[in-house]
């Protein structure tokens, strides 16, 4: 059963084609990745979903056209986008405050989650006092407490050092196993996509089209060493792109 369904979505800025033809499905409780080279327009796709931009093609949520964008998605931008002037607790409640939840009630809803996100004891700290990994966990906490239907994660670990990134990927995989969020992840990291996803859509360079849809049948919890063959196959697709279907756009 698919929650989010995109059919032949296209987007051009001025005369520049950014998204040529994107079709994809995200089922309930599924973790789906969009994998593509930098500058392929992956973030543009999220702008379409959150309603910041408008494109062509069909975007369906639970079978109905997307209209009230804010209702379905909780969006986590590339950098953590924590507000330096708010304490971690107040950063975490931001989405709820925007929804109109009173500050006290919002805090009460968020506070029990700090331990699970490895942030217990840091509620009163400012973001600048936290490490990069902790900041990303705080940003994810801010995203999931909004209790939207689906998470949109835009290269959430792109700015972290390699070691922290790996730690965060393992942590996120474990969190996902517990919560089964419906999630769409943008990344250009093949290993990250294979490690986290149920399904991967490999995009071409701009103008972006779907080169291949790759299910990831590996058992969970994921074993970081068992994915080498799949990673090699995807790298090959990315580095030697040949459109699989008859897309004759340009």
């Amino acid at each position, binding site marked *: 059963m698919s929650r989010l369904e995109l059919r032949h979505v296209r987007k051009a800025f001025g005369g520049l084609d950014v998204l040529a033809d994107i079709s994809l499905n995200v089922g309930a409780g599924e973790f789906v990745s969009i994998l593509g080279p930098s500058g392929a327009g992956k973030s543009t796709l999220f*702008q379409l979903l*959150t*309603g*910041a931009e408008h494109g062509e093609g069909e975007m369906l949520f639970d079978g109905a056209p997307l209209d009230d*964008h*804010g*209702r379905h*998605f*909780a*969006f*986590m*931008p*590339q*950098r953590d*986008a924590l*507000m*330096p*002037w*708010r304490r971690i607790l107040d950063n975490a409640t*931001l*989405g709820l*405050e*925007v*929804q109109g939840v009173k500050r006290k009630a919002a805090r009460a809803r968020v506070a029990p989650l700090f331990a699970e996100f*490895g*942030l*217990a*004891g*840091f509620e009163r*700290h*400012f*973001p*600048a*006092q*936290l*490490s990069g990994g*902790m900041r990303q966990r705080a940003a994810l906490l801010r995203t999931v407490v*909004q209790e939207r239907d689906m998470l*949109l994660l835009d290269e959430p670990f792109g700015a972290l050092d390699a070691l922290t990134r790996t*730690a965060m990927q393992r942590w996120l995989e474990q969190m996902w196993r517990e919560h089964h969020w419906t999630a769409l992840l943008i990344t250009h990291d093949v290993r990250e996509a294979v490690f986290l996803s149920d399904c991967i859509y490999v995009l071409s360079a701009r103008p972006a089209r779907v080169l291949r849809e790759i299910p990831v049948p590996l058992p969970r919890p994921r074993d970081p060493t068992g994915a080498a063959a799949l990673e090699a196959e995807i790298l090959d697709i990315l580095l030697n792109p040949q459109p699989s279907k008859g897309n004759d756009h340009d």
Partner: protein
Amino acid sequence: MVSSSVALRPLAGSLAKAIPAVLSVGLLLVAWELYATYSGIKPTILPAPSRVFQQAMLNREALIDNAIPTIGATLIGFACSLSVAFVLSMLVDFFWPLRRALFPVFIVSQTLPLVAIAPLVVLWFGFGLMPKILLVALVTFFPTLVALVQGYEATEVEIGQMLRAMGAGRWRVFMLARLPSALPYFFAGLRISITYAVVGAIFAEYAGAAKGLGIYMLNAKNNFRPDLVLAAVGVSAALTLILFGLTVFLQRLAMPWERAGRQPARKGARR
């Protein structure tokens, strides 16, 4: 841990940082004193700092009496200028074409020579408080406005995107993100304009006033009392320094995260 020792440590630190400044000012005063004493120059041309200080003490009542209207004009003028700059900065942020309409006018207002404008403003508005307030506002308004508008623009793009994705409208985005983002810029602008504010008030008084440091300086000069002119200059410098220190203090109060960010978290990270 005793809390006072925690409070004292930054104080001791800032005192240590002040030592070079105290030394350089002290050196300058010593050189001046020596020159005025041993070069045979007349005290009616260049009084020694010790004489300036002594005369300031003797005339302290008159100095205080004249400083009060100057402080009043500075603070009221500055408050007016801040309020108007804040309202206008918001309008400019919401209606961008306003910027193109208004900024040229404000830039021209900054090129007006105070020497020419001050007597005219006194001519139009009399010897009361009004012309002083106007001149203080004139010199402090633009730096504050520019700082605020730039500060709004400095809002992290991703924070704006995220808030809109959360469903926030323009007003919410302004209040939640753009306004707090502008705070460091605002205080930078405040520190610049506060140093102009006292000078602006004194200029206005110089052009005509019943009382005030400006008119006091003018009278002292006309009576060939450079020592009293310098004493009044010292008072105005002290005023500016106090106001400057006040803005630094206010900034610390308003932006506690700025200092917190310089010290890493004490508590150990949990994985």
